[in-house]
């Protein structure tokens, strides 16, 4: 309550600063992407080439797919720390069923993703465990389980049809990029055009009011985590296909960090009640561009990591809502 006094006193002074912060939260990511593109166009050799763009997009596709699910979860005022582990699980499932054909393998991987996500959702919605705590168990055990399934081995994959997913293209656009783009459209439609999407945002924006408005809060929560799980599994399948190997040990390591970063950088607040799909897409692109720019200018991986850490802190700092 004490802040109320200071707020009212300095109200006019801070209102312009607040407006600036809000503008930055909403549009910062687009400006940053534009600025980085401009910088690279001017100072980086061979940047504005189709080949380079394709490479960047292929690298960003799995992160984007995971980030889309994460954006939905964060929209409900939650977080899913288990996405990397779910990717590893999907990767471990693929070789088991590839013998029965790529379609069966992919479907099995996605089913595991849905189940993992729904499990998280039930813990959050029905048992009432905090999202970060609920998804921690799967983060701890999920990768281990994947490694147990894979017997700790990296398995080379040779099914041509399956590998086509990661290497093939349609009209010059890589399949994985196409899938990521399609999913972004689907998720955008889901959030903005469907009952489920609007209920999701309402639950995140004011859970008490949503309950009093008779919204199916538990169903929405379970659904959101299930979607996040299946998207992580899709990302795991695509990354596995591109790698031409099932590698549960490294698959999706620190993916939760990349996904959360992209979502937050894209202007979706960790406090929920808002999902920005386009912002998330640009958040992923921004982080990919940052990495690419640093690498193209021969900055070592170590520096790149430290700079990313700084960007994450800065983005979360700007995005946090003052209460």
């Amino acid at each position, binding site marked *: 309550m004490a802040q109320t006094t200071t707020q009212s006193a300095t109200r006019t002074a801070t209102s312009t600063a607040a407006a600036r912060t809000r503008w930055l939260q909403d549009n910062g990511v687009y400006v940053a992407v534009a600025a980085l593109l401009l910088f690279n166009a001017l100072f980086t050799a061979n940047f504005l080439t189709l080949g380079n763009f394709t490479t960047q997009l292929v690298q960003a596709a799995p992160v984007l797919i995971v980030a889309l699910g994460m954006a939905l979860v964060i929209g409900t005022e939650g977080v899913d720390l288990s996405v990397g582990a779910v990717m590893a699980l999907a990767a471990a499932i693929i070789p088991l069923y590839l013998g029965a054909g790529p379609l069966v393998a992919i479907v099995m991987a996605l089913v595991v993703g849905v189940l993992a996500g729904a499990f998280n959702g039930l813990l959050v919605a029905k048992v009432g465990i905090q999202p970060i705590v609920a998804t921690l168990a799967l983060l701890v055990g999920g990768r281990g389980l994947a490694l147990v399934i894979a017997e700790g081995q990296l398995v080379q994959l040779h099914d041509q049809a399956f590998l086509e997913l990661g290497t093939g293209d349609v009209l010059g656009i890589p399949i994985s990029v196409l899938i990521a783009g399609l999913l972004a459209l689907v998720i955008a439609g889901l959030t903005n*055009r469907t009952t489920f999407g609007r209920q999701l945002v309402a639950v995140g924006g004011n859970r*008490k009011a949503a309950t009093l408005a008779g919204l199916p809060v538990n169903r929405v929560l379970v659904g959101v985590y299930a979607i996040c799980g299946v998207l992580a599994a899709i990302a795991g399948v695509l990354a596995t296909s591109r790698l031409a190997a099932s590698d549960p040990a490294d698959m999706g390591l620190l993916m939760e960090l990349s996904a959360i970063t992209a979502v937050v950088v894209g202007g979706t607040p960790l406090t929920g009640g808002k999902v920005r799909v386009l912002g998330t897409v640009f958040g992923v692109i921004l982080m990919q561009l940052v990495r690419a720019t640093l690498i193209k200018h021969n900055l070592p991986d170590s520096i790149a990591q430290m700079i990313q850490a700084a960007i994450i802190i800065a983005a979360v700092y700007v995005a946090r809502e003052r209460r």
Partner: protein
Amino acid sequence: MPTDPVIEVAGVTKTFAGVQALGDVDFTLQRGEIHALVGENGAGKSTLIKVLTGIHTPDAGRLTRNGHISTIYQEVNLVPLMSVAANLFLGREPRNRFGLIDRARRNADASELLRGYGITADVSSPLGTLAVGEQQMVALARAVEANADVVIMDEPTSSLEPREVETLLGVVRKLHEAGISIIYVSHRMDELYRICDTVTVLRDGRNVHSGPLKELPRIELVSLMLGRSVKEIEKHGTTAFGEGHHADTQPVLEARELTSRPRINGVNVSIRPGEVVGLAGLLGSGRTETAKAIIGALPLDGGTVLVAGKPVSHNVKSAMRAGISMLAEDRKTEGIIPNLSVRENIVLAALPRLSRFGVISRSKQDRIVDTFVKRLRIKVSSPEQKVAELSGGNQQKVLLARWLCTEPRILLLDEPSRGIDVGAKAEVQALIDELAREGLAVLLISSELDELLDGADRLIVLRDGSVAGELEGDQLTSEHVLKAIAAEVRDGSDDHAVSHQNGN
């Protein structure tokens, strides 16, 4: 009378974001007295307390404090997972000669101390394992042990069982005997008259009365709080409500014996189509709880809700399906979804009806939103404007629209005109009237007696969680309501005398 003020406040003014919370308030607490501080919601009690304790700095006025003040709040502000003893001595733990906490002594001291407060529980067990009343007592003991000269108690009994209330009042008397001055905030008339010497009534941020409590009849006190004089002649037409409604004979809503201890106890409410039933009573009398019990948002110890004779399961979804909608009192925390647009806030509860296969029909939505924006005269630049940017009155209309587009048969309105400007208030009142005319059954909760007397066809008066009276027709006067609230039938002067034998 010799004066020895511990706290003296003169001409204090405090404004938040252009709204005056306290205006030129004088307040004096004499050493050794128990001073009741009363007033309805928004009267400025909590602001005054925060000024007294130094949490708020007043914009104008003088404040003198001659002693250390401790405050205990309605919700126990301790740490439930820590032991009772640890809570009691947090920040001033007894040490042994190695500078470490002496746990044996801490427990012994705590046991001994709490025995004086009637608590014999194991002090090494977590505080959360104690009953709420005992926790409140620990908070009180902690406040007193901090060498307080003044203890401010902000509605300390609101969540206590009757037995616990007795223990607490006993402790308050002991503190009083020990020479500690007390500011006691409560809405329970019985308690006030039993223990308090002096009373200060706040209304709309102003001190409307200060003086000895025993000389003030209960009904006077209630009328001071509500701002209605007993003798005042009924003047209808101050609100935008029309004349009485033609009600059907069969009730569409029947709530029987609603009980959720300790907040409400055996409340009965029935409303006929086209009827506006008012719920009157002081803050904390169980009005909001009754409405929440009907909509299924409050866990019940007993009671049933019937709509058109059929029982409704006790959850919000079933209640809504049966045709009950509730406009919650707290717009911010229970009503609006701040990040969403006006359009989305309006259609929120009706979404499943406005979509096919889960995809929302934008045209249907726009049509409904357009209808309600026009009908309720919601002032928006566009339906896409964020609801958080609207004025209170328009937010309230948006919420009303949200419930109306679920096509309810029963509408529960909890303080629909609170905190909105005069114009919007009249519009909301006229709308309620119109809705009842169209056959809706309305339950109207309001702290404003005018609004209730004028708007309701029948009034149910609540006191301490029970129905204190039902008024209809000629009985719909402020005198009857005030009498029911003040419980004139039972005179508490006996207890009163006992508790003041050592007073001034």
